[in-house]
């Protein structure tokens, strides 16, 4: 009885806080329905590295080609046989202006336009390296994160620019991710921290672990949590960039760092492969599930299969149940089971399509859907302590 009372008070406090913040701080969405794409329904086997919704279509980069989903079905799996630069597709970006799809592959950069691929490689173009991990479109420019630096490709003039350890403050030029805004470019460098390029000033600013060591920061919010940065995202609503590392999650608001570890947050694992952001939400793709952090309410939500410990790299969930773990700002946690689940606990990336999310896992692609009634029921159950 006392526990219920405490829980009710906690929820009530949270709702009051949320109300105080206005409509901009709703409770985080709860994804209770998952549709998985695995070899069972025509999806290629193996890792899914990235995903990019494109209208009613979804592009997914996998270890075995680029997948086009249309209206919830696998329409086509593109491989090198179709002209793709490489079968392992690490990143996809849709140019909303032209409709062209830019594909970063282990083998080069591909541009899919009007049903055809055009490839850019290290030997045939100004591409810095054929291992392309990240790609982002910024108007006429395409930014590319490669294993040997960052490229900017001018789609009008065909000019290529390179930034690496020779002309920019890259400790390591091995770049894993890239995000762009109208004014800045954010780069995740594996071992090199985060680098931010100012388009107006034409300069790079590095953000690295202040310890200058390959250990995590000594003090919690001292700086970037670690120099091995696997992904980067900019959140225009929070005016923050978020960096995923293999040792925790870091956010920077221009003045202060906000670091998160499993030991003091709801983060499922400190080993994070990618980070994405939407509204006030920050999504960390960890090896032990997909963790969402609502920056305004400070609520954490993690999604993973119930039997995730039994899964290995060669096995994906088919129709197994999932679990949602909610962590409240006061450290309390609650676990809920859902009838369906993410395809795998090892999460490699996530993307948003309206309210829906698409999750790239080590064994298949998952489509997460909010069921409003179910969501309300769950939140009510928290409030009522049912």
């Amino acid at each position, binding site marked *: 009885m006392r526990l219920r009372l405490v829980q009710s008070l906690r929820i009530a406090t949270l709702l009051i806080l949320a109300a105080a913040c206005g409509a901009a701080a709703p409770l985080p969405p709860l994804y209770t329905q998952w549709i998985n794409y695995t070899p069972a329904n025509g999806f290629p086997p193996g890792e899914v590295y990235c995903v990019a919704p494109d209208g009613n279509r979804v592009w997914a980069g996998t270890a075995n080609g680029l997948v086009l989903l249309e209206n919830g079905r696998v329409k086509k799996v593109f491989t090198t046989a179709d002209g793709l630069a490489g079968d392992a597709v690490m990143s996809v970006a849709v140019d909303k202006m032209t409709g*062209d799809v830019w594909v970063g592959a282990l083998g080069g950069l591909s541009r899919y336009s009007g049903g055809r691929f*055009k490839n850019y490689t290290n*030997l045939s173009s100004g591409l810095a390296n054929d291992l392309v991990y990240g790609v982002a479109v910024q108007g006429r420019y395409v930014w590319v994160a490669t294993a040997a630096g960052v490229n900017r490709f001018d*789609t009008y003039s065909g*000019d290529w620019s390179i930034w690496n350890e020779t002309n920019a403050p890259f400790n390591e030029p091995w770049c894993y991710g890239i995000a762009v805004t109208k004014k800045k470019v954010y780069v995740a460098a594996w071992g090199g921290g985060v680098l931010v390029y100012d388009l107006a000033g034409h300069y790079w600013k590095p953000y690295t672990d202040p310890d200058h060591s390959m250990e995590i920061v000594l003090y919690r919010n001292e700086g970037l949590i670690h120099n091995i940065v696997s992904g980067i995202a900019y959140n225009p609503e929070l005016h923050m960039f978020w960096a995923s590392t293999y040792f925790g999650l870091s956010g920077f608001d221009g003045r202060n760092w906000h670091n998160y570890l499993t030991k003091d947050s709801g983060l499922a694992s400190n080993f994070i492969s990618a980070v994405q952001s939407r509204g006030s939400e920050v999504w960390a793709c960890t090896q032990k599930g997909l963790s969402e952090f609502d920056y305004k309410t400070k609520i954490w939500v993690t999604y993973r299969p119930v039997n995730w410990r039994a899964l290995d790299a060669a096995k994906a969930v088919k129709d197994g149940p999932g679990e949602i773990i909610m962590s409240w700002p006061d450290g309390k946690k609650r676990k809920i089971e859902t009838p369906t689940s993410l395809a795998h606990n090892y999460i490699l990336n996530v993307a948003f399509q309206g309210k829906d999310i698409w999750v790239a896992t080590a064994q298949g692609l998952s489509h997460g859907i909010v069921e409003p009634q179910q969501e309300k029921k769950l939140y009510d159950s928290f409030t009522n302590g049912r």
Partner: protein
Amino acid sequence: MRGGNGKPGIARVGGKWRVCLTIVLFWVAGSRRAAGAGWSERWDSDPGYLNPIDLEISPGGSRLYVVCQESNEVRVVDTRTHEVIGRVKVGLKPEAIALSPDGKTLYVSNEHSDSVTEIDARSLRVRGVLKTGWGPVGLTTDRTGKFLYVANTLENDVSIINLATGHQVKRVETSRFPEYMDLSRSGNHIYVSNLIARLGPYYRPPVSEVTVINTRKQMVSERISVPGVIELRHIAQVPRSAGGYLLIPFMRPKNLNALIQIPQGWYLTHGMAVIWPRHSGGRPRARVTEVLLDDIDHYYADGTGAAVTPNGDWALITAASANVVSIINVARLNRLLQQIPVNDPEALADRLDSARHFVARRLPTGRDPTAVAVSPDNHYAYITNRLDDSISVVNLRSLRIVSTIDLGGPKEITVLRRGEQLFHDARFCYEGQFACVTCHPHGGLSNGLTWSFETPKLGHDLVQNRTLRSIAGTSPFNWNGMNPNLEVQDGPRTEMYIFRSQGFSPSEVRDLTSFVRSLRLPPDPYDDPGGDLTPAQRRGRAIFFRTKTNDGRLIPLHDRCYYCHAPLTHYTSRVQMNVGTATPHDTIQSFDVPQLQGVWMRAPYLHNGEALTLEEIWTKFNAHNQHGFTSDMNKAQLNDLVEFLKTL
């Protein structure tokens, strides 16, 4: 880099003093402009030719709007009186014209001003000038008239311009050298024909492209492959009631055969692509077939202009180098098309007996008929004769030329004018198969193909076609440097190896070479008019003129870029060099050093076209540093070098 004898050639030609002088003079000169000249410069006293190249007909059919490429104007012709009733100045080298859907506004692309002139069609008052990409040619509005689409030939894309603001809203990528475009009859799509074939795998037949833009989404919705052909030109649309397809003239080369080995003579044909786009009829992909317009014993070189009567009865295709318009009976063409198996779309692509089934009449036009327009009442067609400054009028009921409209150009024929006419004349070639312009279209451009011409060994000495633009002062010529001057190149050599027919007279050779010498590169968009280089270009220039490797070792003179590509002589030393690019198919090892001016638009590269991009010259074909010492360079340096080369 070594001379043909395998020895460093620098000792023969001047040593260090020459090198120092070269560098100093280059820096003093500041840029390539020391060797080039502006587009507006004329090489002889020009009496003011017009060169009508494109035309539009007013919605009611009472007026012709004629784009005059040489005089930089639009002339207006009354279709009843055949009199020129107005004219308006536009930008430099206007190429194409489009009318707004309401017929009230004219849009004219200015290839050398990188702009479109917007003109009130009634008053001929210039309303404004719209900025485009580089080298705009084809253009059209969408169905609403709110957006203008302009093909930027030098950037391989299409600018989409909001006509309310006059600003470009976006660009979409095409294939290579997009030249003409046309709005579909439904208004939902825009078709773009690309003059040059895609850059593809070496030693494979060319594949050209028709790019389809969805006007609602303003995105490329389809890239239609047209196999085995190059030089796609004007686009004509057969109405749905008569077949619902596109007709696009092309040239179908047989460059993978050694031409002289064809026992029946030459084999380089001209025809038209017949395309049913994907969106017309709900096909999963476009259906493409090809039909030749040539006859067995006479060819109709350089199909260029194309139009279909509104009722779909007749199609007209001009053969620009044959000075002929072919009038096609569409119903008979449809019957032939029905015989082509769906699974063998190229079944008729090489058949020289096809045209007799559907060509109703071949009518002689003036010189270089480039464009054709049909009156709304289906009664008349008008054809621009670019090198006669006139318009041929075809009566489509009698299928005869009934009149020739004089646009008012000068009657005097200069040396250059005669040379240009010869350049565009296929009658000197065996069976009229082609003219100089066939392989060097659009002002001497290279058509980007590799040929086998001059050897008795089948498949040997494959040679990349080079541009003729700005070749004055770059002798000797030919890939092996065997032709000491243009007179030999264009005279005896052309007679013997190219045309295989009646040669030019001495005066004709003089006229022709004068014209070829006058061909110029377009303005270099990479070159800042103020003379400044970007940081990358400056770094690239330092690499071009460097004397030491990255680790401080002296680079031998003959391994420096500027040794073979000397700035003062158009970036060519004008000798033959062995740069290690000979293949087992080559009978020689040393090749003529090409000039570098305009190198950014000359892909593919090397004597045989094996390098598809500038980067590949060094990343794939310079393993032993024979083509300059480059192995110490990192990727950023190579990119900088490429950026500098693009300014030349």
